[in-house]
């Protein structure tokens, strides 16, 4: 018998379904809002280029939904890669310190550089990005000895630096004015409100490099499922691979956090959903989680914009409200499996 096994068909049909879900989510989110455009009318509006609907779509809705998709994709993909790297389904991009480092960078900028004004649009994301990368670099240096990196030590170093960054942010908060505090809070919760084509252009280079690099790690991540020694026996060059996985994840999360603040739980939930939907094979999981994360992020933003209209919720509030119960459910399931 020579045929592809059923699991391969399941993976492929899941990818196909998610590939259809994303454009559907994008159209839906682009259409719905204060100015309603029926999603099925969008292609026609785009072709005719005439009325007000076109202006709303091109200058407001599209940048926003594309940003939401890009941030969701980056977070979900790096989440999937880091879960594979740590061989732990509960790992999250926050673990290697990049999220809290970016938060610290942003807090330093908001509190210590008062009156930045126009500069803020570019300087704040840059500071967050640099903060995230520096923290990850520090975590990596702490965890390496003699050219090798112990994954467990990496995890512990990440926890330690997360705590340190949290403490420093707390110190800064105690010195912040009310206005700085509001700005910091809003940034911490994340949101796609400020999206313009410029935002997208600014994140494109690092975002695309990270996306391209991370998507190629499926095969070595599969080998790593058995353990580090076994991955080497299956032909994986371990140390360069681990360096790539962490550096590219930091790049992805740094880019996402710089553009949209701390949007929680997508990096954790999207890979899990794909595993439940199709299975754990990283060659399919990585593109699948990317597509799913993008769709989830777009839909969460749609809820954030419309739930309490005309006001707007930070998207991080929506993802955490939905993500936290899901995470607790996962923990309980995990607990049951361990107890068995």
């Amino acid at each position, binding site marked *: 018998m020579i045929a592809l096994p059923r699991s391969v068909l399941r993976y492929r049909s899941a990818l196909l379904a998610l590939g259809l879900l994303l454009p559907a989510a994008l159209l839906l989110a682009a259409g719905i809002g204060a100015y309603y455009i029926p999603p099925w009318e969008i292609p026609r509006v785009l072709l005719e280029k005439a009325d007000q609907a076109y202006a709303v779509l091109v200058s407001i809705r599209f940048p926003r939904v594309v940003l939401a998709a890009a941030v969701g994709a980056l977070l979900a993909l790096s989440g999937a890669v880091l879960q594979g790297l740590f061989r732990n389904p509960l790992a999250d991009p926050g673990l290697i310190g990049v999220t809290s480092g970016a938060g610290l960078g942003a807090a330093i900028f908001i509190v210590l550089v008062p009156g930045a004004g126009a500069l803020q649009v570019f300087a704040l994301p840059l500071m967050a990005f640099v903060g995230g990368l520096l923290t990850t670099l520090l975590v990596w240096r702490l965890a390496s000895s003699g050219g090798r990196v112990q994954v467990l030590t990496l995890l512990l170093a990440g926890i330690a630096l997360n705590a340190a960054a949290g403490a420093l942010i707390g110190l800064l908060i105690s010195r912040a004015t009310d206005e700085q505090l509001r700005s910091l809070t809003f940034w911490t919760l994340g949101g796609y409100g400020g999206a313009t084509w410029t935002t997208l252009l600014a994140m494109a280079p690092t975002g695309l490099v990270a996306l391209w690099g991370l998507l190629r790690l499926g*095969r070595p991540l599969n*080998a790593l499922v058995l353990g580090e020694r076994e991955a080497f026996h299956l*032909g*994986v060059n371990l140390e360069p691979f681990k360096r790539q996985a962490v550096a590219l994840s930091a790049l992805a999360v740094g880019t996402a956090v710089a553009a949209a603040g701390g949007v929680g739980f997508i990096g954790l939930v999207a890979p899990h959903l794909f595993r439940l939907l199709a299975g*754990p094979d990283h060659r399919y999981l990585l593109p699948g989680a990317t597509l799913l994360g993008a769709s989830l992020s777009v839909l969460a933003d749609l809820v954030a914009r419309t739930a309490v209209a005309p006001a707007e919720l930070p998207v991080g509030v929506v993802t955490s409200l939905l993500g936290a119960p899901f995470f607790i459910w996962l923990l309980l399931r995990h607990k049951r499996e361990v107890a068995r």
Partner: protein
Amino acid sequence: MSLLVAEGLGYTAAGRVLLEGVGFALEAGEVLAVLGPNGAGKTTLLRLLSGELRPSQGRVELLGRPLERYGALELALLRAVLTQRREVGFPFSAYEVAFLGRLPHLERRAEGPLDHAQTEQALAHTQALPFAPRPYPSLSGGEQSRVDLARVLAQEPKLLFLDEPTNHLDPRHQVEVMALCRRLAGGGLGVVVVLHDLNLAGLFADRLLLLHEGRMVALGRPAEVLRPERLEAVYGLPFALAQHPSGRPWVMPLAQAEPTPVAG
């Protein structure tokens, strides 16, 4: 040219000598069993031979070329390693775990039906096909062992390193794993297998390598190596020698259960 050559192989970690002066040559078609008490250096030897550790002294040659001149992927296309570890990070099915053996072959091309045929055949060889669709973590230790063995077979190596492949297996499957090693060697593979069961080694291996405290105590045919006085020196336990119906040596430790005093 020998498939695998080790010369004066030694390994020192943190000032402790784990292995010293081990040398042998393995031909294609040969099964070599590595024996010795716990901590004798069997696993260390396997890690040196598989390229996982760099030797502190001596060298290893694979097909006439020094081991350190191979890349990880080149090695994976030539040799497969079965470690003692049985742990999978995610709920992969048994089939998917066995299919991981195909990974080195999929570095430069996409997977095809032949890769799956290969995997299925490997699972059939280790009698693991009936539970292939089940999640690997839900299998018993013995079933997991057979899936792992199928994985290294699916890798289609020329050289096979097995670290205690008979662990967790019932007697019938122990014998079947060793018979499989023989068949594979018959097909031209070289097999290095670490075993604790002296008699299983004596029955199925061409040659035995006996390690004691990091040194090679004996290397030779089963009848030359399995001598009671030598085994007593190595294991600290008296042994008696008998003959298996096949004519191979059969040794047994001369230990007795302490008579239990009956209360009252």
